Each structure stands twice: as structure tokens, then as C-alpha cells.
């Protein structure tokens, strides 16, 4: 057949109708020394490996390797994830629970081994391989039905077309054919690539969208398909609530509430006031304080004082949100002020200035009831930093961040927080107890912090404020323990620093003055030029 001579010869194939005839032919071919042979059958034929001399495969080793990889992967994964990286207790089981890790280890062994078997087998077989010259003969279609084929490849060393055709012809076959390529194109049709290109292109789009959204910003909340409890109906602090008459979502403490750990019997400690002295000066106020701060004493005091304190008692006992003027117990953080106001209202005699304020007459504690040590000071510093420094500044000068911001936005009704370094706040004029009371109850625009800072910590803050004050106005004489040379050294450092500051200030002032002078000269010059120009104009 002349046309076949032009095409490449891949080999020769012969067709058989039964297993036995095929096997006989295979043995003959094997015995004749041909190695690059293959048989094609609709089902696996028992004994054909031996008949053709096919060697066993390495697949079992691949599968073993894959299986062992699976075991190791599973164990390492579980041990890493549950015992090392994020260990947490589950019903008392140890972090490294090997019995519990076995099931997953087994499953992954099987999974990996199966992948090894499946993909390894196809890989070793060289499949998928859609183009195979042996498919060119339509008679070959029966290989998956009921015919058997024996093939000798042209690449075999002994291959000689005539000889092979004769050898095969001698076996029990009716059909021997040379295997050549057919006329079909061996290029992949373009539409195939176009389709794949389209699929790949389209599939990239969602990815790009996601990537873009990950790096870009939006002022709108993220699009939610599933709300996932992201929009909780629970109220935030400072929000309005229709459930209460006063409209607040945050509810104040029930009057008489004492925080756990704050049930102190020592009222001096809790108020900063020498209660004995206060009882002597102003027994009714002392009694109110006692009742407010220590509900255990309430009944005793009530029964003793009943006839005299009707109005006050009724107003104190009712935990209503009514008139804070009449209820000094409820309005704790404005206590002294309101007490002062009510005192002022009650008195109809001389103007307030003539009568000393409660703040002045109260017998405050002079000294800090805490034993001062490094820990107390450290706690004081920590709490000062948390609660106080936002307004008063880290150094207590009153220029905290809130103040900076208020100045920047030029807030109309902002008053700068007090500097703690004013003389009026020094220990001799502003006793420790008074300072404590201010921290607890607030003053002017400052809110009271009794609800946020524990009593002991408030005293610690008092101690720290004293330390801050000392940092600005201590004189060397107060440090009796420092010896002479040290004192002199410190004094000298102070003097030098002061001098340097002074010199810098002078230099700045001089530079500013010079700049001003230059500007004045420049202005004068410009003015003169102008008048000259005008004059020249006028004259021309």
C-alpha cells in the first residue's frame, strides 16, 4: 500500500478472538526476543504478564511512601495545632492526646495512600493520553468489546516490518495491520484553547474582585450576605433608650449600692474626712455620710434619729431619680457642691461669700492613710496615667490631650483643667483628704471617679499627685538625706539649666526683635519706593 509508505510506521498489530490464541502469540513473540511489545485486551488477562515478559511495577512503593507521608502529616498537624500552637483544655484531656489523634492519622494515611495509588498509577501509565496512533484503525474499536490485539512497536531493536508481519501472520490471527498515523490533524483545535482561555479568564474575575475589595477602603459597611450577629440590637453606652423615662440606656447605680470589696467600715478612709471631728461640727452631715456609705448602719441610725430627720430621711431613702437638690445621697458625685448649695439655699442670711463653704470647713484628713511605699506610688502613677492624665497631662500641668484637642478645635465652653502645681493645691492648703474627695466626687467640670477607681487606688493617686507636685517645687533642703557634695552638684545643675534656658530665651527674643526690625525696614523701604513711584507718576 503505497500511501502507507509515506506515513510514519509506529508498529504492527494483529487481532485475536480469544484469550488462548492471544497468549500463544504473546509467548511466541516473547520467545522471538521482542521486548517493545504490548497486548490490548478488553479485560485484564491472567497470565499475560508472564507471556509477554512484563515486569512488575514500582507502584506499591509509591503507595507506601504516600501512606507514610499521610501518617506523619496527620500526626505533625494535630500535634502542632492542638498541643503546641494553640493548646487548650478539652475535658481534662492532655494537650498531646495520642489516642485521640489516631483516627485522623489513620484517615489521612488512607487518603494519601489512595492518592498515591490513583494518581501514581495514571502517571506511570502515561494517561491521560488522548492521541494514540493505535486508535487510527477503526477495527481497534473492538478492543473494548471482545477482541484482543498484539502489538509490536517499531522502536524495538529487532523490528523489521516484513519479519514482524510474517511472525504475527503465523499465529492464530486473521488480521495483521501496520499502524500508521491517519489524516486527522495533530494540532489541538483552536476553539479548545479559546474555550479554556475564556474559562480561565472568567474564573479570575471573582478573585480579582475579592482582591480589590481586600485592599481598598470604603465608607460603607461591608456587604453582608449573612449578618452573623454583626448588627447586634443591644444598646451601646451613651445611646438613647425608649425603655426608661429618662431616656438613658446606661442605668445609674441603685442608691445604696456598694461595690464588692468596698464595704469598708472605716469611713475616714472612704471619705477623706475625719468623721469624729465632723460629727462634732456637723452631726447631720456626718450621719448622712454614714448612711450613704454604710447601709449596715442604716437601721440603727434611722431609729435613733427619726423625729429629727424626717425630710432628709425620706429624701435619702427613696431611690428615685427625682430632684437632686433634695437628695444629696443620690447625687453622690456632686455631694459637697450640692450640700453647699442647699446650705446656701437654707440660709437666708448673709451672701455665700461671707459664710465659709463646706469645702473649707470640713475637717479633712491631713495625711494619706496608706503606708507609702514604692508599690503604692507605682499604682498611683499607673492610675493617674489611666484616669487623670488625659485632662491634667502626664506632668500634671493641665495640658492633657483632651485640652490640646479642645484648644485645637477652639471649643467654646472649654475650661482648661487645673494645673496641679498651683500653690493653692499644695499639701498645706489642700489637705490629702480634700484632694481625695475631689477625685472621688469631682469639682466644677471634673466628674467624680468614685465609681471607677477603687478607694485604695484613689489614695494612691493622692500620694502620686503629691509626688508630682514635689517634682516641680521641691527645694533641695527638703531632701535631708542628700549629703553636701551631692547637694551642691544638684544645685549647680539646676543653676546651669536655668541659665541655659535664660540664655536661650534671650537669644530667641533677640532673634525675634531682629526679625521684626528687618521687617519694619523692608516695609519702610517698600513704602518709600511706592511714594517715589507715585511721585514720579504724578510728575510725569
Amino acid at each position: 500500500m503505497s500511501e502507507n509508505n509515506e506515513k510514519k510506521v509506529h508498529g504492527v498489530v494483529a487481532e485475536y478472538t480469544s484469550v488462548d490464541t492471544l497468549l500463544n502469540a504473546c509467548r511466541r513473540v516473547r520467545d522471538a526476543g521482542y521486548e517493545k511489545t504490548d497486548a490490548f485486551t478488553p479485560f485484564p488477562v491472567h497470565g499475560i504478564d508472564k507471556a509477554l515478559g512484563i515486569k512488575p511495577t514500582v507502584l506499591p512503593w509509591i503507595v507506601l511512601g504516600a501512606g507514610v507521608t499521610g501518617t506523619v502529616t496527620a500526626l505533625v498537624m494535630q500535634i502542632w495545632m492542638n498541643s503546641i500552637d494553640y493548646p487548650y483544655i478539652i475535658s481534662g484531656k492532655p494537650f498531646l492526646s495520642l489516642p485521640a489523634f489516631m483516627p485522623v492519622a489513620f484517615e489521612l494515611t488512607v487518603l494519601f495512600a489512595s492518592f498515591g495509588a490513583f494518581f501514581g498509577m495514571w502517571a506511570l501509565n502515561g494517561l491521560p493520553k488522548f492521541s494514540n496512533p493505535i486508535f487510527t484503525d477503526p477495527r481497534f474499536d473492538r478492543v473494548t468489546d471482545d477482541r484482543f490485539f498484539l502489538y509490536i512497536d517499531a522502536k524495538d531493536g529487532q523490528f523489521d516490518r516484513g519479519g514482524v508481519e510474517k511472525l504475527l501472520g503465523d499465529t492464530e490471527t486473521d488480521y495483521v495491520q501496520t499502524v500508521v498515523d491517519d489524516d486527522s490533524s495533530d494540532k489541538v483545535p483552536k476553539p479548545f484553547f479559546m474555550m479554556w482561555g475564556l474559562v480561565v479568564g472568567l474564573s479570575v474575575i471573582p478573585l480579582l474582585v475579592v482582591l480589590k475589595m481586600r485592599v481598598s477602603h470604603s465608607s460603607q459597611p461591608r456587604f453582608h450576605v449573612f449578618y452573623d450577629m454583626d448588627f447586634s440590637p443591644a444598646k451601646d453606652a451613651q445611646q438613647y433608650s425608649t425603655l426608661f423615662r429618662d431616656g438613658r440606656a446606661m442605668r445609674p447605680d441603685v442608691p445604696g449600692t456598694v461595690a464588692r470589696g468596698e464595704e469598708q467600715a472605716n469611713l475616714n478612709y472612704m471619705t477623706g474626712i475625719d468623721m469624729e471631728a465632723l460629727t462634732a461640727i456637723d452631726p447631720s452631715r456626718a450621719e448622712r455620710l454614714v448612711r450613704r456609705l454604710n447601709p449596715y448602719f442604716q437601721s440603727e441610725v434611722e431609729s435613733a434619729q427619726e423625729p429629727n430627720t424626717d425630710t432628709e430621711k425620706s429624701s435619702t431613702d427613696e431611690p428615685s431619680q427625682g430632684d437632686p437638690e433634695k437628695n444629696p445621697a443620690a447625687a453622690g458625685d456632686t455631694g459637697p457642691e450640692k450640700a453647699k448649695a442647699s446650705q446656701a439655699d437654707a440660709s437666708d442670711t448673709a451672701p455665700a461669700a461671707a459664710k465659709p463653704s463646706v469645702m473649707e470647713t470640713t475637717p479633712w484628713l491631713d495625711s494619706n492613710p496608706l503606708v507609702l511605699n514604692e508599690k503604692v506610688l507605682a499604682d498611683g502613677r499607673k492610675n493617674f496615667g489611666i484616669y487623670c492624665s488625659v485632662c491634667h497631662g502626664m506632668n500634671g500641668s493641665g495640658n492633657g490631650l483632651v485640652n490640646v484637642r479642645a484648644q485645637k478645635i477652639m471649643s467654646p465652653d472649654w475650661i482648661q483643667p487645673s494645673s496641679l502645681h498651683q500653690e493653692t493645691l499644695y499639701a498645706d492648703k489642700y489637705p490629702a483628704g480634700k484632694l481625695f474627695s475631689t477625685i472621688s466626687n469631682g469639682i466644677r467640670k471634673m466628674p467624680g471617679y468614685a465609681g471607677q477607681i477603687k478607694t485604695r487606688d484613689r489614695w494612691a493617686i493622692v500620694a502620686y499627685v503629691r509626688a508630682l507636685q514635689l517634682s516641680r517645687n521641691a527645694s533641695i533642703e527638703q531632701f535631708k538625706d542628700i549629703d553636701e557634695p551631692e547637694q551642691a552638684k544638684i544645685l549647680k545643675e539646676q543653676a546651669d539649666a536655668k541659665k541655659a534656658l535664660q540664655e536661650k530665651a534671650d537669644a530667641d527674643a533677640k532673634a525675634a526683635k531682629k526679625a521684626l526690625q528687618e521687617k519694619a525696614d523692608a516695609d519702610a523701604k517698600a513704602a518709600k519706593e511706592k511714594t517715589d513711584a507715585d511721585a514720579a507718576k504724578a510728575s510725569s
Partner: protein
Amino acid sequence: MSLAIPNGLDNTVEQPGERAPLVLGDTTYHDITEAVCQVAERKPSTSWVIGFLISFALLQWLTICILYLIYTGVGVWGNRSPVFWGWPIVNFVFWVGIGHAGTLISAILFLFRQEWRTSINRAAEAMTIFAVVCAGTFPGIHVGRAWLAFWLAPYPSLNLWMWPQFRSPLLWDVFAVSTYGTVSLLFWYMGMVPDLATFRDRSVNKWRRMAYGVLSLGWSGSSRHWMRYEKAYALLAAFAAPLVLSVHTIVSFDFAVSQVPGWHTTIFPPYFVAGAIFSGFAMVLTLMIPARKMLGLENLITIRHLDNMCKIILATGSIVGLAYGTEFFIAWYGQVQEEMFAFTNRAFGPYWWAYWTMVTCNVISPQVFWFKKIRTTPWMIVTVCIFVNIGMWFERFVIVVTSLSRDYLPSAWAYFSPTWVDWSMLIGSFGLFFTLFLLFCRLMPVINMAETKATLAKQYHVSNDGDH
């Protein structure tokens, strides 16, 4: 083209010293090809169309119910305190169990060199895959926030910042069922490649040829390929066999590792596996008996095949019965009050009707398979098998619901009732299963032609008395 059974040939009788023929009639290799291919090549029969429409409708109903569930929440089911695992888990275990028969037929019978498996293993494997699909749906949707089910996977999560909890049997389940589904799929597909090549070579339509051509990976029937293929097949079977054991064992661990009375018994692993095989074979028979008749495959799926499967049902049913007895005895022997109560409660408590259904269907009904007459009459087999499946569903129901509805604290006891969504999903899952199965019958080779031809070859060899 139907292969009618020649009169008088009964291959259920096997003389010692001879082996009964497994392929009947004067069947040739070509006859096998024709018989199997025509199922997919001819126009669908009326019964197929009707079956498909019904299944598809049920499938749509299931889809709607699932969407409703995801939209509204898990409360649409009957799951309430204390029965937090209700029908979803019962259905899950039920379907996973059914899937096990396929792998057993493919893998374990292969390892035991049981030739008769060759004509049923393809359909059984397909059944496994579809059962696993049905099974996997339920845990996926019962987690409450199904769209976050991927959190179960061990990936480095940037918003959770934590890993899955490997000390939980529920996570072992994730790995086990996924592995099982994957390996079954690989095994099934690999087995189909030579037969898909047959479909390819017989295709007249160009698109059909291309589709089957791609799916069959260019398979040419090369003996060198067959050699590696056989090795891979044997290795996969060797792995699939313990996998079958392990999957339902791990499912049983969901219950047995707890302390709930009636759940915490050490025999659960082999008992569940036996039960799974039991229900799986019952489902195989329920599908196969009508299929072989309607598709004209009675010479390939012979009475002997049915007989053998019935014997396996009898054996595994007896194991399940033995397990029931052992549990009951040990509950008494252990003298733990809650455990003893759990068992008396099952039999005489509010769910007594479920318990006795279970016992009748699981322990008593398969015992009829001692009688050969019943084992070899197809309609009787189907009846018993349907009872077995009902019984096995009730077994999971009894285990889950009775133990949970009454455990340690009497103050927590409550009676569980399913909702219409529970019912719908159970029935709908059958729709999913049958839709997939009917599609499989139309599109894929329903019998493993290559292996059946190999069985036939052996038969030729034996009857020719070995001429070399």
C-alpha cells in the same frame, strides 16, 4: 436486548468440587458489552422517566427545605433540649451506613477473591458515593451557620486565629467521611475508566465520543496499563477495606466516647460496622432487584448473586442481634442504674413503638433468610430488605433519641417530636439519592464489563478443562 434466563438453570446450587457459573446463558463477551451499553444508549424507558421525575421533584423539595432551614435557623427542626441531636444525625448515620455496602462489595469481596461481585460492584459503588453525598448534607446543614462549615477544615484562619479541635469525634467524622467519599470516588472512577472507553468506542455521536473520550483518559486496554491498573486496584481495595471499618467506627465514636447511658458501650464500633453493612446490602438489593429486571440484566446479576447477598444480610443481621443482646446483658451485669434504665426505657418507655419496630425489622426479619426459598425469590427479598432499612433507620433513632430524651437528670427529660421539615428532609434525601442513581443508570456503565468479562473468561477456562 434482554438476556432471558434459560429454563431450568439454577446457579444457586453448587456441587462441592465445582463452582457455579456466575454468568448465565450462552453469553459471549460481546453479549455482555451489548447488555450493559444498551442501558445507557437506548432511549429512557417510561419507568425510568417516571422514577426520575418523582425523584427530581423530591430533590427540589429537599433543596427548598434546606434553603428555608439556612434562612430561618435550626429551630425549624424538632431539635430541642435535651434532644439536641435529632433526625439530622439519625439520617446522617443512616446514609453513611448504607454507603458501606458498596465499598464492602468492591473492596472486601475483592480481597476475598469472590468472583460473584463483578456484576454488582459498579452499581454498589455508585450507591456508596450517592449515599455519602446524602449523608454529608446533614452534618453540613445542621451546624447552625452552614456558611461557616469550612471552619472545620484545618486551614490557617486569619479571623478565627485558632485550629479545629482534634480531640473531638465530630472532627474525626469530618476527616473520615471526607476521606471515605474521596476514596470511594477514586475507586469508582478508576473502575469505570475501561468501561467508559467501551462507551467511547461505541459512540456514534461526536460529542458523546468526545465526552466519554475525555472521561476515559485515552484508555487503550494495553496490558502494561492493565498490570499497573490491577495493582492500583488491589492496593486501593486493601486500603478501602480498613477504611470502611474505620469510617463507621468513627461515626460510632460520636456516641460511644460520651458518657450518655445507652451510648457509652465499647461494642459500638464493630456493632455499627455490622449494622452499616447490613443496611447497605439491604439497599443494594432493593435497588438491584428492580434494576436487573427492568434493564434485562438477569443473566449477569443472577439469582446466585442475590442468594449470596441475602446470606450476608443474615450474617450481619445476626451480629447486630448479638450486639443488642450483649449490650442488654452487660447493662444488667454492670448494675449501673442509669445504664439499666436506658435499656428498660427503650423497650417500655415512651418510644417503645420505635424500639419494637427496630427489633422486629432488624433481628427477626432477616432470620427468614435461613430459608432458601425466600433467598431466591426476588420480591420476597425486596420486602425483607425494605423492612431491614426501616429497622436500621429506627435503630439510629432509638439510639439517638431515647438516650437523649431521658438521661441522667429526670428534670431534663422531654419527649421529642419531629417537625414537617424533619420529615421533608428525610424523604427528600431519598429523592437526592434516587435522582443521582437514575442519572448514573443513564449515563454510566451500570455493570463492570471488564471484570464480568474476566469472570466469563475464567468460566470458559474451567469448562474447557484447561488445555495447557
